[in-house]
């Protein structure tokens, strides 16, 4: 049981989720992510990673326990697909959360979010005119437009080529530091999990529970990081925990 310490932005307390079919999908899970912290989640397919994210966003009601996200405002969420409205411009897509919340000043906020994501010149373009990596940047800008305290990403860059992926990972790290975001990052890649995470959480097969919680040493991220002791040791630890989890 984790105590809510006031610093935590994302918070799960003995959270379990079972589906109406009786399938026990998740938990119990205790988790807390602080402002300015990124927690990566690794686990076998179907272990309930997406269920955990859906509970934290409020899209899914916990069966027992609780899941909370900061002040109750919707967190920024990036899904596996960019999920943009093809009929709307990049700026309109980014402004959508504010429009839905009925908040004023959505255009200025959209411009600011586009600048954060390095997209200031593409505001008038339709999504169809952008590459996959650029579309993900738009999706990221949209997640940030409401100035959320938390950012949840559900395997967002899996379909993107290696180079584009690294630059998106670096963007997430920069945004986390600049905006003091609590970030929860679900991925299938051990390297990406260690690169992004201050902690890497390994989940068990369904019903997903926390198998291991690995702290990654706080060393500067960049090309050099991948050959560092911190990376090599953390990745090895994550891999063996993942192997244990799969064997269970």
């Amino acid at each position: 049981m984790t105590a809510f310490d006031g610093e935590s932005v994302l918070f799960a307390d003995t959270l379990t989720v079972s589906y109406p079919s009786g399938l026990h999908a998740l938990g119990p899970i205790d988790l807390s992510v602080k402002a300015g912290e990124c927690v990566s989640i690794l686990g076998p397919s179907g272990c309930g990673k997406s269920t955990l994210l859906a509970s934290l966003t409020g899209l899914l009601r916990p069966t027992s326990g609780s899941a909370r996200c900061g002040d109750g405002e919707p967190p920024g969420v990036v899904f596996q697909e960019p999920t943009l409205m093809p009929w709307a411009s990049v700026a309109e897509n980014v402004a959508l959360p504010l429009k839905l919340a009925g908040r004023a000043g959505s255009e200025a906020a959209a411009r600011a979010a586009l600048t954060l994501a390095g997209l200031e010149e593409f505001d008038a373009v339709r999504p169809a005119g952008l590459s996959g990596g650029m579309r993900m940047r738009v999706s990221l800008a949209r997640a940030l437009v409401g100035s959320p305290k938390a950012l949840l990403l559900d395997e967002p860059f899996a379909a993107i080529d290696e180079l584009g992926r690294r630059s998106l990972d670096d963007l997430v790290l920069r945004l986390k530091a600049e905006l003091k975001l609590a970030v929860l990052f679900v991925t299938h890649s051990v390297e990406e999990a260690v690169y992004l995470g201050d902690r890497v959480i390994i989940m068990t097969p369904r019903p997903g529970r926390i198998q291991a919680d690995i702290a990654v040493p706080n060393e500067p991220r960049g090309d050099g990081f991948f050959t560092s002791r911190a990376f090599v040791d953390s990745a090895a630890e994550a891999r063996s925990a993942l192997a244990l989890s799969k064997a269970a």
Partner: protein
Amino acid sequence: MRTPDIAPLIGGIVMLAVWELAVRLTGVATYLLPAPTAIANALISGAPVLIPSAVVTLGLALQALLFALLLGVGLAVLFSRVTWLGRALGPYALVLQATPVVAIAPLVIIWTGVENPRTAILILATIVAFFPVLANATAGLAAIDPGLDRLFRLHRAKPLDRFLRLEVPTAAPYLLAGIETAAGLALVGAVVAEFVAGTGATGGLAWRIVEAGNRLETPTMFAALILLAIMGVVLATSIGWARKKFA
């Protein structure tokens, strides 16, 4: 600018020339097959009667299209909200669609009264045009991207926001395709209903065809047909143009 393809123009001129020559060489009676020049003459001399009739028919078709649009979209939205109603009534819309409009026409005329052919024609043309609107609007409303649906739920979108910002833009291309089909059908419905009503009271183009047929004025029949064809093409292309613009 691209140079327009002149092949259709040449094809048309050749066909008309062959037709004209064949009629002149064989000396076939005008009431059986008039020459293109005779049809052109009938079109010019009959214009004062034919053009107003064309306007009447076009007006009826457009009104029916509007009714079909309101009814089809309204029902599609209702069915998407109250799904059991869609399941209960959907199959009967299909039955109505499968029944030939000519067969329904006498019934509708009895109900509206023989003295109200205009109402009967509007109802019949609406019945024919309404189904593609309903079917396509229903398909469009069902085509919502599940990811966007989740995003709208995440941000607790109000029902009106969801409708205007997600459902309408998703359904629009489907709906325009349905309207394109419906426009052609509305014209067919208006003409068929006018035939069945068998009265000159509305004075549409179909009635001009019946009238000219009774008098064996075959060139006038052809002239009316040409006007109908032009209306159909103009309707379809203008909606097709709008469709491309919004797609």
